[in-house]
C-alpha cells in the first residue's frame, strides 16, 4: 500500500514540475496551434476587436510567436497599457487567455498645502486630470511644486504623493506638502541706483523671501533703463543671513545721432542700431553697426558712402555720432555680357545687379560666381566669368561689363539606369526627362534623380538611394543613375492614440491605406489631411513604428479639440438694419462625428430658428446625411414706400444626402417640405391665389456642384459652378406644382499676387404645371442688391405691379465681373460691373432687357472673408430711379 501511495505522490510531483516547465515560451516550434477562442480580462478602454487587431490575433488562425511579440509591442504603443500577458490553455482546444493591466486614469489631483495649494496646483504642467498615470508625470509634477515652493521662499519644503486607487482603473492623486520654515527678509540692502525701487519692489523687510517678486523687479528695472536708452543695465541679488542684497547697475545711457545723412532718414538708419536689442555696447558692436550702415547705403545706390563713428562719453552717458558722407546716388544704366551666347534677359534674371537697379558694389564679387554656377549647371564646366568692369557715366549712370569665356557646352550622351530590380527600365524611363544630345543641364539631372527616388518611395522603397555617375567623353556626358533600392516596406497596422472621446471607427474610416500595400508617405499625408478635415482634432501626427519583416506600422497621434462651439455676432445691414445671430452646436455626438446645432438669426425684417443634424457616414459609406428644421418669420419691405410688401411664416423640414465625387464635383439630393403662410401681401404683387394664405410646398431637389477654388472665403483661382433642379408636385403632397432650374458659374483668375479677376453668370427658370400657372411668391426669383446687380436696391429689378412694386418672376439672368486688388494690410479695392434682370416668364427673356451697373468697392480682410462696402452706379437708369446704391456686407459678392 505504501508503495502505491508513494507512486501517486511521485506522479503528482512530476506532473507539477512538467506543468511549471511549460510556463516558458516555446521556441522553434514547427507549425503553431490554431487559436480556437480568446478570453480577455482587464480591458476597459478600447474594444476587444481593436485590441485583437493590434495584437494580430485571430480565432481560427495560427498564433505565430513572433507576430504575437510584435502585436504586444504594437498594442503597448497605444499608451494605455501597463501590462499585457498572453497564455494558451493546455490541451487540444488552443484557447487563449489575455490578461491586461491598463494604466489608471487620473480622476483628480489634490494639493494639500497650508498656504499655497491653489498656487501650486495651477502651476502643474506635467500632469492633468484625464491623463494616464505614469510615475514620471507624478515625479515631474512634484519637482515642479518643489521648484515653485523654493521660489516662494520655502527652501526646506518637501512634497510627498499618494496614489489612491479607485474602481475602473482610475486614481486620485494627492500631493502633501510640508512647507518647512520659510526664509524671512530681515533687511533689504539696495546698492547702485536705489531711487527706482520704491513701490516697484514688491517685497519688504519682514516678508518671506519670494524670488518671483525679485524676478518681477528685475524685469521692471531692465525695461525701465532700456526705455531710457541705457545699455548694459543689470540687477543682481543674493540672500545672506537674513539680508537681501540687491545691486542695480543702470549701465550707460547711450545717445546716438547721425550727421550728414540727407538721402536716408534717421529713422531708417536707426533700425540698424542693434546694441539696444542685445544690451551690449562695445567697439566691436560699433564696427558691426557701421558695416551694416554702409551695406544699407550701398543697397540704396550710394557706393561712395563713408561713415565715421565717434564716441564721446562721461561717467554716465555716451554719445555716439555717425558722421556720414553719402556721396551721390548711382543707378545701373546698362549690363553687358561679352562672350555670352545666353539670352541677355535670362542672364539679368539671375544677377542681383540689373538695369535700372541701384548700383550696389557689394554684388560685384558675388554676381560672377552666380553666373559661373549658372553656366556650369547648363553644361559649361570650363566657363570663366570676370568681375564686371564698372564705368560711371553722366548723372552717375553705371555701365557694367562682364567678360565671359563659355568654353565648350556638354551634351547628354548615353543615359543608363543600373541597380533596378523591382521597377522596370521602361517604368523608370518615364521619369527620365533628359534625352541623348540634349544640352547638359544639372537642374534637369537633379530633377530626374528626384523623380526616380520619389517613384521608389511611392512603391515602398523608403531607403532607395539614387547616385548619379557622369563620365565626360568628347563633349558628351554619359549619365548613369545607380540605384540602391534598399528593402521594400509595406504598410503594417494602424495604431491610433489620443482619441478619448472619438470612436476608433471614425478615424479608421478616414484611412485610405491597406495593410500589406506598398508604403507611401503621400498616402499618410493624405490621411492626415482627411483627419484634420473632420474638425475634431487640433493636431494629427503620424509616426512610423519599427520595421518587422517588410512591415511598418503607422502610429496616428491625435489631439482632440473641443467638440462644442458657440458663435454669435451682431451687425448692421443696409437692408435689414440691425441684425445678429447666435449658434450653439456639438460636432461629435456619441463619438461618431455626428454634428448637431441650433442657430437663430434675428433682424428687424426676419427671425429664423434652425435646428440641424448631420450624420457624416450612412451605412458604412461616406454619404453625409443632413436634416434641418427651419422656422422663419420674415417681412419684405417695399423699397419705394417703406411699407410691408408681404409677410411670410415658414416651417421647413429638409433632409437629404450629399456625395463628394472625384475632381471637385459634389452631388446632392434633398427632399423639402414647407408650410408657408403668406399674409399682408400688397395687392399689386398678387399674381395667383397661392400668393396669399397657407400653402404646402413639397418637392425634391437634386443638384450638382463643381468647386476647384483655392480658398472659399477669398478665392484667387479656380471655378465654382452648380446646377440644381426643384420638382414640386401634388404627388409629393404639395399644394402647388412647378419645376425650377437654377445654375451658376463663377471663375477666379489671379493675374498677379495682388490682382484677381472674377466673373460670374447666374440664371434660373421655373414653370408651373397642372393647375399652377404662376409660382408662389416665396418661390419666385427676385434680383438686385448687394450680391447681384449692385446699382439697384435689394430685390428691386424685374416685373412690377401697378404701383411699381417688384412682383418677382419665373426667370432671371445675371452676370458680374470684378477686378479685385489688394492694396496693403488687408485693404483692397474692387472695380465691378453687373448686369441682370427678372422676367415674368422664361419666354420673355431678352438680352435687351438687361440692366447694367458699374461701381467701386472697398474690402477689408477678416478671417471669414472680406468686409465689403460697394457703391453701384446705374448705367441705364429709368424714370425716377436713384442713380446709385451703396451696399455693405461680409464676404465677396460671389
Amino acid at each position, binding site marked *: 500500500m505504501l508503495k502505491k501511495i508513494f507512486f*501517486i505522490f511521485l506522479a503528482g510531483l512530476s506532473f*507539477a514540475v512538467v*506543468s*511549471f516547465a511549460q510556463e516558458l515560451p516555446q*521556441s522553434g516550434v514547427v507549425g503553431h496551434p490554431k487559436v480556437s477562442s480568446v478570453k480577455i480580462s482587464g480591458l476597459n478602454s478600447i474594444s476587444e476587436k481593436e485590441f485583437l487587431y493590434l495584437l494580430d490575433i485571430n480565432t481560427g488562425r495560427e*498564433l505565430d510567436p513572433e507576430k504575437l511579440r510584435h502585436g504586444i509591442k504594437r498594442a*503597448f504603443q497605444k499608451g494605455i497599457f501597463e*501590462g499585457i500577458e*498572453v497564455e494558451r490553455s493546455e490541451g487540444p482546444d488552443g484557447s487563449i487567455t489575455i490578461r491586461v493591466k491598463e494604466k489608471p486614469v487620473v480622476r483628480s489631483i489634490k494639493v494639500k498645502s497650508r498656504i499655497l495649494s491653489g498656487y501650486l496646483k495651477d502651476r502643474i504642467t506635467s500632469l492633468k486630470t484625464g491623463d494616464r498615470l505614469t510615475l514620471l508625470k507624478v515625479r515631474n509634477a512634484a519637482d515642479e511644486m518643489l521648484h515653485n515652493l523654493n521660489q516662494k521662499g520655502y527652501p526646506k519644503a518637501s512634497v510627498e504623493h499618494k496614489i489612491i486607487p479607485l474602481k475602473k482603473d482610475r486614481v486620485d492623486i494627492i500631493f502633501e506638502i510640508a512647507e518647512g520654515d520659510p526664509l524671512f527678509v530681515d533687511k533689504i540692502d539696495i546698492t547702485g541706483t536705489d531711487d527706482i525701487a520704491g513701490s516697484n519692489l514688491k517685497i519688504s523687510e519682514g516678508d518671506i523671501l519670494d524670488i518671483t517678486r525679485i524676478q518681477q523687479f528685475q524685469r521692471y528695472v531692465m525695461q525701465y533703463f532700456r526705455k531710457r536708452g541705457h545699455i548694459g543695465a543689470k540687477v543682481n541679488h543674493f540672500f545672506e543671513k537674513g539680508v537681501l542684497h540687491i545691486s542695480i547697475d543702470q549701465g550707460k545711457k547711450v545717445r546716438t545721432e547721425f550727421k550728414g545723412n540727407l538721402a536716408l532718414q534717421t529713422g531708417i538708419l536707426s533700425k540698424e542700431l542693434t546694441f539696444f536689442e542685445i544690451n551690449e555696447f562695445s567697439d566691436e558692436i560699433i564696427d558691426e553697426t557701421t558695416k551694416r550702415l554702409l551695406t544699407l547705403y550701398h543697397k540704396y545706390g550710394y557706393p561712395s558712402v563713408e561713415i565715421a563713428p565717434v564716441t564721446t562719453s562721461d561717467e554716465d552717458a555716451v554719445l555716439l555720432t555717425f558722421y556720414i558722407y553719402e556721396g551721390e546716388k548711382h543707378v545701373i544704366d546698362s549690363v553687358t555680357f561679352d562672350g555670352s551666347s545666353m539670352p541677355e534677359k535670362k542672364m539679368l534674371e539671375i544677377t542681383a545687379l540689373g538695369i535700372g537697379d541701384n548700383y550696389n558694389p557689394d554684388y560685384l564679387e558675388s554676381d560672377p560666381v552666380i553666373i559661373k554656377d549658372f553656366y556650369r549647371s547648363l553644361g559649361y564646366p570650363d566657363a570663366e566669368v570676370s568681375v564686371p568692369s564698372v564705368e560711371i557715366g553722366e548723372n552717375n549712370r553705371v555701365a557694367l561689363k562682364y567678360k565671359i569665356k563659355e568654353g565648350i557646352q556638354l551634351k547628354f550622351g548615353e543615359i543608363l539606369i543600373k541597380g533596378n530590380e523591382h521597377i522596370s527600365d521602361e517604368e523608370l524611363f518615364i521619369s527620365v526627362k533628359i534625352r541623348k544630345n540634349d544640352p547638359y543641364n544639372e537642374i534637369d539631372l537633379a530633377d530626374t534623380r528626384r523623380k526616380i527616388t520619389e517613384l521608389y518611395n511611392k512603391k515602398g522603397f523608403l531607403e532607395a538611394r539614387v547616385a548619379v555617375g557622369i563620365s565626360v567623353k568628347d563633349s558628351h556626358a554619359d549619365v548613369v543613375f545607380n540605384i540602391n533600392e534598399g528593402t521594400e516596406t509595406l504598410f503594417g497596422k494602424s495604431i491610433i492614440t489620443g482619441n478619448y472621446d472619438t470612436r476608433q471607427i471614425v478615424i479608421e474610416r478616414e484611412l485610405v491605406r491597406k495593410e500589406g500595400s506598398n508604403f507611401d508617405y503621400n498616402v499618410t499625408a493624405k490621411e492626415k489631411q482627411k483627419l484634420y478635415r473632420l474638425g475634431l482634432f487640433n493636431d494629427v501626427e503620424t509616426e512610423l513604428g519599427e520595421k518587422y519583416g517588410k512591415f511598418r506600422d503607422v502610429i496616428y497621434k491625435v489631439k482632440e479639440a473641443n467638440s462644442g462651439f458657440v458663435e454669435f455676432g451682431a451687425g448692421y445691414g443696409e437692408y435689414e438694419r440691425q441684425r445678429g445671430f447666435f449658434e450653439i452646436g456639438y460636432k461629435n455626438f456619441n463619438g461618431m462625428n455626428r454634428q448637431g446645432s441650433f442657430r437663430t438669426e434675428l433682424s428687424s425684417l426676419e427671425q429664423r430658428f434652425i435646428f440641424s443634424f448631420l450624420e457624416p457616414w450612412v451605412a458604412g459609406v461616406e454619404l453625409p446625411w443632413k436634416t434641418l428644421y427651419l422656422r422663419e418669420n420674415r417681412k419684405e419691405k417695399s423699397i419705394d414706400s417703406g411699407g410691408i410688401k408681404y409677410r411670410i411664416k415658414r416651417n421647413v423640414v429638409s433632409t437629404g444626402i450629399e456625395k463628394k465625387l472625384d475632381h471637385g464635383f459634389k452631388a446632392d439630393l434633398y427632399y423639402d417640405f414647407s408650410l408657408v403662410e403668406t399674409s399682408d401681401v400688397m395687392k399689386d404683387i398678387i399674381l395667383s391665389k397661392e400668393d396669399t394664405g397657407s400653402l404646402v410646398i413639397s418637392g425634391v431637389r437634386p443638384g450638382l456642384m463643381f468647386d476647384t477654388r483655392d480658398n472659399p472665403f477669398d478665392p484667387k483661382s479656380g471655378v465654382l459652378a452648380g446646377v440644381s433642379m426643384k420638382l414640386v408636385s401634388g404627388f409629393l403632397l404639395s399644394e402647388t406644382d412647378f419645376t425650377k432650374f437654377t445654375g451658376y458659374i463663377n471663375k477666379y483668375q489671379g493675374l498677379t499676387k495682388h490682382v484677381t479677376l472674377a466673373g460670374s453668370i447666374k440664371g434660373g427658370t421655373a414653370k408651373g404645371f397642372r393647375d399652377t400657372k404662376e409660382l408662389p411668391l416665396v418661390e419666385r426669383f427676385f434680383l438686385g442688391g448687394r450680391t447681384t446687380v449692385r446699382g439697384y436696391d435689394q430685390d428691386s429689378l424685374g416685373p412690377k405691379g401697378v404701383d411699381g412694386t417688384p412682383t418677382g418672376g419665373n426667370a432671371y439672368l445675371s452676370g458680374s465681373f470684378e477686378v479685385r486688388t489688394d492694396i496693403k494690410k488687408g485693404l483692397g479695392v474692387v472695380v465691378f460691373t453687373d448686369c441682370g434682370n427678372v422676367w415674368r416668364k422664361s419666354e420673355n427673356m431678352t438680352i435687351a432687357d438687361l440692366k447694367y451697373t458699374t461701381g467701386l468697392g472697398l474690402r477689408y480682410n477678416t478671417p471669414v472673408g472680406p468686409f465689403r462696402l460697394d457703391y453701384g452706379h446705374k448705367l441705364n437708369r429709368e424714370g425716377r430711379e436713384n442713380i446709385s446704391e451703396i451696399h455693405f456686407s461680409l464676404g465677396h459678392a460671389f
Partner: protein
Amino acid sequence: MKYISVSDMHSKLIFLAAVVISVLAGTEPACSELLDKIVAYVDNNAITYSELKTEHARNKMVKMTEVETLNSMLNKMLLLKEARAMRLEASNNDELLKEYIEIKIRSVILIKDEDVENFYNKNKTNFGVKSLSESKDDIETYLFEAETNRLLNEHIANLRNGYEVVIRLKE
C-alpha cells in the same frame, strides 16, 4: 497515548497525496502556457519576455543575470531613442548607437598630459621599466575608455530620470 491504526494512516496519506496533486497540478498555471508578456518598458515602447529570453541566450558567455540583461536592453532602448530624436542615421541599431556615443560622449572627452602623468606616477610599479613616454599611448587609451564608461553611465542615469522606465519582470 493515542495510537493511529495502519488503515487510518493509509487513508490520511492518500488524502495528502490527492491534495498535493490537486494543489500542484490542478491550479491554473499548471494548465496554461505563457506565450509572451511585457517585462519592461520605456514610455510607450515595451520589451517582451520572449525578447528578453533571446537576448539573455545571446549573452550567455557574459554570464549576466536576467535583470542585468533587461537593464542593458532598457539602456540601449533609451540611447536609441535619444539618437533618433537627434535624427542620426545609420545602417543598423548598433551603428546608430556607436554614432550617438561618439557624438554625445566620446567627442567631449579630453585626456590631458598631466592626467597621463599623474596616472603613470600613481601606478609606476605596474609599468616596470617602461618610461612615461613609452606608456603614454596605452595610458591615454585606458583613461579615455574609463572616462567613456563613466560618462556613459552618468548619461544613462540622467536619461532614466527623463523617461518612464518600468521593469515588471517579477509580475
